[in-house]
């Protein structure tokens, strides 16, 4: 996994609520495309019009925000399907951090598995970042610093954010969950032995 320490750059003001993972990456792209190739299809249905041409109304198409590493959104970002391709597509378009008031639970977990940082901030703070960004498109820079746990707005305001200590550590070091859990092998074995004796019905019916 790619470690994450801090990122600085333009923030795409995609101020929509309930952005679902179907919108982030259409399922058809996941059937035929490897995880590395998804970036060009991120937000495909918002980014392109029915005739295949670029939709100028989509903020992600604005020259100031192409390849921007931060994405701003309204509540419940990444709701819907469990497809991890949503995270791969965002990373493929250059996004390393999404800031929203709340996230879909599975998407939120998927982000940490891939080194993409999801940051929860109050909507008022996100709107401020969006306004400061839109006031100077092309110049405004936002910083998200995971070590210090602060977002620094284009005007320099520091907004602290909370993040799970466990997940923060894993992101900073680029640690993989599987390796960590395999260190618990003995605890798992002990649990299994106890459970097999206590709940034979849960074991033998599939043995």
């Amino acid at each position: 996994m790619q470690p994450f320490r801090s990122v600085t750059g333009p923030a795409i003001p995609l101020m929509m609520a309930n952005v679902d993972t179907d919108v982030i990456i259409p399922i058809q792209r996941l059937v035929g495309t490897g995880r590395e190739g998804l970036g060009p299809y991120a937000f495909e249905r918002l980014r392109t019009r029915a005739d295949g041409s670029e939709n100028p109304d989509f903020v992600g198409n604005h020259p100031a925000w192409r390849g921007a590493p931060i994405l701003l959104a309204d509540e419940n970002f990444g709701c819907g399907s469990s497809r991890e391709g949503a995270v791969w597509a965002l990373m493929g378009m250059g996004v390393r951090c999404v800031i929203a008031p709340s996230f879909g639970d599975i998407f939120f977990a998927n982000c940490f598995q891939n080194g993409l940082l999801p940051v929860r901030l109050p909507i008022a703070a996100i709107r401020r970042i969006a306004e400061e960004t839109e006031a100077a498109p092309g110049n405004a820079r936002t910083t998200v610093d995971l070590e210090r746990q602060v977002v620094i707005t284009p005007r320099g305001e520091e907004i602290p954010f909370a993040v799970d200590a466990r997940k923060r550590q894993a992101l900073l070091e680029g640690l993989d969950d599987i390796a960590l859990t395999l260190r618990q092998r003995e605890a798992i074995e002990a649990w299994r032995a106890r459970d097999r004796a206590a709940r034979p019905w849960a074991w033998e019916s599939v043995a």
Partner: protein
Amino acid sequence: MPSTMFDRIWDRHVVADLGEGWSLLYLDRILVHDLSGGRAMEELAEKGLRVAEPRKVFATPDHAVSSAPGRTAMTYRKGGELLARLRARCAAEGVRIFDLGQRGNGIVHVMAPELAIVLPGLTLACGDSHTCTNGGVGALAFGIGASELAHALATQTLPQRRPGTFRIRFEGARPPGVTAKDMILAAIGRFGAAAGTGMAMEYAGEAVRALSVEERLTLCNLSIEMGAKVGMVAPDDATFHYLAGRDFAPKGRLWEQAMAEWRALPSDEEAVFTRDETIRMADVPPQITWGTSPEQVVAVTGHVPPLEAARDAAQRAAWEAALRYMGLAPGQPLIGTKVDWVFIGSCTNSRLSDLRAAAAMLKGRRKAPHVTAWVVPGSEQVKAEAEAEGLHRRFLEAGFEWREPGCALCVAANGEAVPEGARCVSTSNRNFVGRQGSGARTHLASPATAAAAALAGAIVDARSF
């Protein structure tokens, strides 16, 4: 201390406390499907890891397989390639696969309860967000992403953060013509698409107790549409009766022992939930969505809300965008809206009782000529049972297509799609932009409402049709 059913199951499965509300949770069952299963297992192999407990893992192709009558794995070539990879990894790891045309094959969340792979009190994970469906039998079941799936397969465990608990009690008797689908859509409409984020749902109350197990599966299925990874209904005699004798249900002495444990699962009377809400069934008419989020839902006899009703500018903008996509106007009635497609299927509403409810609407009538209507049974078993009852003939005589089991138009990952701009009344669970096909306009509703729409060629109130 009084505890909830969720707490009991969670606590029992904690292998290690990881601190800060995190636990390493043991998984009793893992389900995999064609879309992500083969890849996750390949990823393991690349890391030099094996599936930890292959007997507790079950695979079925469902997402990317064609639903065309007489289909083979290669009818949809890209899906066939995914399936070939899944088959190869299952064979190498000793994982059971319920392959196309075999008994047990079907949509992963339909076949798991059907085969009693999932049981009350078990933990279950699957690389699919609608895994919450399985909570209908009183299991703690949740969807995960591809990386978590690889972790689950390699260790039979997952680090998880304990969610809060959210109970919704449906009080009073269910009015005639109101289904489990209407109940859960009404709840999402009332509480919002993010109300369950970070929560495990429990559905309770008189109206839930009166639901069949199949209906409870429908209820739990849409928990994720409220933002919750987990949805549960306490097991009772209906659950035990449903599970008894199924392929992977415990038998004999083990069954007795399991039943004794299952009877102790339901939440204590005094248990405290993080959030507790009540819905009166008298306030729940049949529902239909008008927008592109499941929370954008009204009574089928209702109207698209006027824009002035939006709570703020952001919601107003979201409504405007949804209405533009859906080709609807603020304030317009839903009834009478012309419909081009009808889809009866998906892990929400493709079980035998759903197909019976849809068939009961037909009464010898034919679909409107301009409507394309598909019935896609949820599994081989549902298909066989429906055919034994002659349901397929009634659908065919009414001009509906009777197809092969799978996800089909629910997610349009199998080469099938609702055409651009077409309006579809669908018994599935997501009305997202482009979900059923690029530019497709989806209205979520119950099987009865969908069947009635096919006959009328427009949205109608199935109760008076």
